[in-house]
């Protein structure tokens, strides 16, 4: 599977992220000969355990994070961060979890992409049903190679070039969010489980940021 880097736009001090930033970033991609080619969506959810008796503690994970990709519609992924675990299952696992009624959906973040070259997507992260913009998201994909180690320098150089192009008209910077894949027993060969962990990590980052 091609390696993906997940980045986000970090506005300069004193400024906030806005939809105009996305418009400017898309222009910067188009100026590098990027072409609009479709829409993608990633849906990340935060679940909390259900306790029958609120006064009694339960021995279980306090937070269950899940993510689904429009590019991989038959799969669903869970991440348990304290346990350093990524779980891959069929999309029917969502129905199973609904039937078990042990965890309840607390919050959903939708990543909506509008532009895609064979390398790059740019989009926004919003809280579902509220259109509350939490961040601008950038995904860079390198098709020929699946090794994280072998692609690291090349991907960094691409992001640096993109940063220079964007800086001609925008303040702020592109930040690459890189989870420690080894902590979750994920190998150098890139997979959807690596992607799931990147999106979950970015969702947690956005939710931890204050909003106006």
């Amino acid at each position, binding site marked *: 599977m091609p390696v993906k880097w997940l980045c986000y736009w970090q506005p300069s001090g004193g400024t906030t992220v806005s939809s105009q930033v996305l418009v400017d970033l898309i222009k910067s991609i188009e100026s590098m000969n990027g072409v609009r080619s479709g829409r993608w969506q990633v849906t990340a959810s935060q679940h909390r355990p259900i306790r029958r008796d609120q006064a009694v503690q*339960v021995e279980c994970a306090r937070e269950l994070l899940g993510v689904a990709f429009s590019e991989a519609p038959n799969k669903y992924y869970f991440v348990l961060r304290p346990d350093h675990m990524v779980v*891959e*299952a069929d999309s029917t696992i969502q129905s199973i979890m609904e039937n078990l*009624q*042990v965890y309840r959906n607390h919050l959903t973040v939708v990543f909506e992409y509008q532009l895609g070259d064979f390398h790059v997507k740019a989009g926004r992260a919003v809280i579902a049903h509220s259109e509350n913009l939490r961040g601008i998201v950038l995904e860079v994909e390198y098709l020929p190679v699946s090794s994280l180690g072998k692609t690291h320098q090349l991907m960094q150089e691409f992001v640096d070039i993109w940063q220079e192009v964007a800086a001609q008209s925008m303040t702020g910077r592109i930040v690459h969010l890189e989870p420690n894949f080894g902590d979750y027993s994920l190998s150098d060969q890139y997979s959807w489980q690596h992607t799931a962990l990147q999106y979950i990590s970015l969702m947690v980052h956005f939710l931890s940021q204050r909003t106006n």
Partner: protein
Amino acid sequence: MECVVQGIIETQHVEALQVLLQGLCGGRQEKLKIHEICLKSGTNLGVEASEVHLLCSLSQTDPVWTVRHVGGPMRGAGAEQLPAHVRSVLESSISSNALRFFYALGYKMDYELVRIGYVFQFQRVVPITVTATMLCKVPKLHAIDEAIPVTPGIQLVELTAPASTENYSEAVGAISSFAEHLAPLIHLSKPGVPTGVVPTASTAAASLVSRGAMKVS
């Protein structure tokens, strides 16, 4: 959803059952070895107590994990009249860290067992799956290589077929009709309804096996 009937057969008659199934539909037979772990939700977790099964298929080179949730049987006067259970079933393949995942979610192991035997698959109006398996208990935690039969000499036979709210009558009819063909060797009925072995199974089995041997030679 699925509909299901089950019964028991003496292990010595399983070969005759294979001959009968081959003769009826020439279906594909595959070996089956499944490590099954039943998990129950911990105290106070969830809207109500729940149960989920992890199945690890050991028949292939690499183990394949599945998580399975079975709902209660259909209820009501109509359901009581049906010769088979109709129940909701949801399955999902899952990565090999499934057990650690469900432990982290607050589930605890209730029991584990190993099923060893055969699975046959046919198409008769609906896809029908027949399994004949020995149930084996695991003496120490996850010691599946040391599993020992719960009832030596007796195997469990199950017929299942997928169903939907629109076609469950048809599916029930299909497996009931198919079960009648197996009547010389085994009584099949709803799970939980005791049937016992067929008294004349030995005679039927001997006839089937000798007919099967004649065909081969």
